[in-house]
């Protein structure tokens, strides 16, 4: 068993309205930061997982994402392994 560190980005599905991102983008534009045409806000989840392999840790994280951490009605997620050097 070793410990793996994984990071999951939970984001709203692209077709779902993001009121917070929309309002933030508008203020960003008003305050004179040019070129930001869209801004969407999600969540970042860090996981420390004891598992037999990186693949097993990933598989667990995938299940966790589907069942628990992301809301399948509104969100989707990506997960990746983070190396200690990062």
């Amino acid at each position, binding site marked *: 068993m070793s410990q793996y560190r994984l990071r999951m980005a939970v984001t709203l599905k692209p077709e779902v309205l993001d*009121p*917070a*991102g929309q*309002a*933030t983008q508008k*203020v960003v534009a008003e*305050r004179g930061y040019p070129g930001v045409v869209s801004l969407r*806000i999600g969540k970042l989840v860090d996981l420390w997982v004891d598992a037999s392999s990186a693949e097993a840790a990933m598989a667990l994280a995938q299940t966790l994402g589907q069942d628990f951490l992301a809301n399948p009605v509104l969100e989707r997620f990506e997960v990746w392994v983070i190396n200690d050097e990062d």
Partner: protein
Amino acid sequence: MKTKVAVIRFPGSNCDHDTVLALERIGAEPVTLLHHADNLRGLRYVVLPGGFSYGDYLRAGALAAHAPIMDALQEAVERDQVRVLGICNGFQILCERGILPGALHANVSGEFRCRMEWIEVVSTPAAWPGFTPGMRFRLPIAHADGAYRIAEGERKTLWESHSVFLRYHDPVNDSQEYSPNGSVDAIAGISQGSVMALMPHPERAMEQWMGSDDGRRFLSLWLEVNR
């Protein structure tokens, strides 16, 4: 001559009107200023009202902290010591702007809380001698992000500089450790120079039938008028 008080309205502000009514109740003359104004029209008293601003998206108060009027307010505080009162969302905005130290974090319950609380004055703000230690007010809270947080090193400075203005108080157990939201040291309000802010809503406690009229006393002391 009535004292004129600026009440700042940001997009999505929702306690601005209640604050205007409360100020009228104690005989002041409130003037609503909008978020895009670039000056305070020379007014010496400013309220940042509670509720929400910009939906409290990103973080409570974070977007309002960047509104043009906050540039003007910061300048007026630094240059002219304009008297500022931040209520609830106003407190959050002042912290997000960096005018006051610390930050308001999510309540430990993870939930919005609306109910009456007791608060107690800890130290007299230099600009408002009328607030004396031990003075108590019964005022409602209504917030999701009211847990005051500050870096450990700064916390000591906060106490030493007598910036801790108000703490929550539990009259049933007479406890100093009670906090409805998980604030560090049960802090409900802080003050520095000509700026004070608190999470409870004095503008919602203006008549006995509202559950308390302690807000009259609080706002009158802030405005330095006798009521």
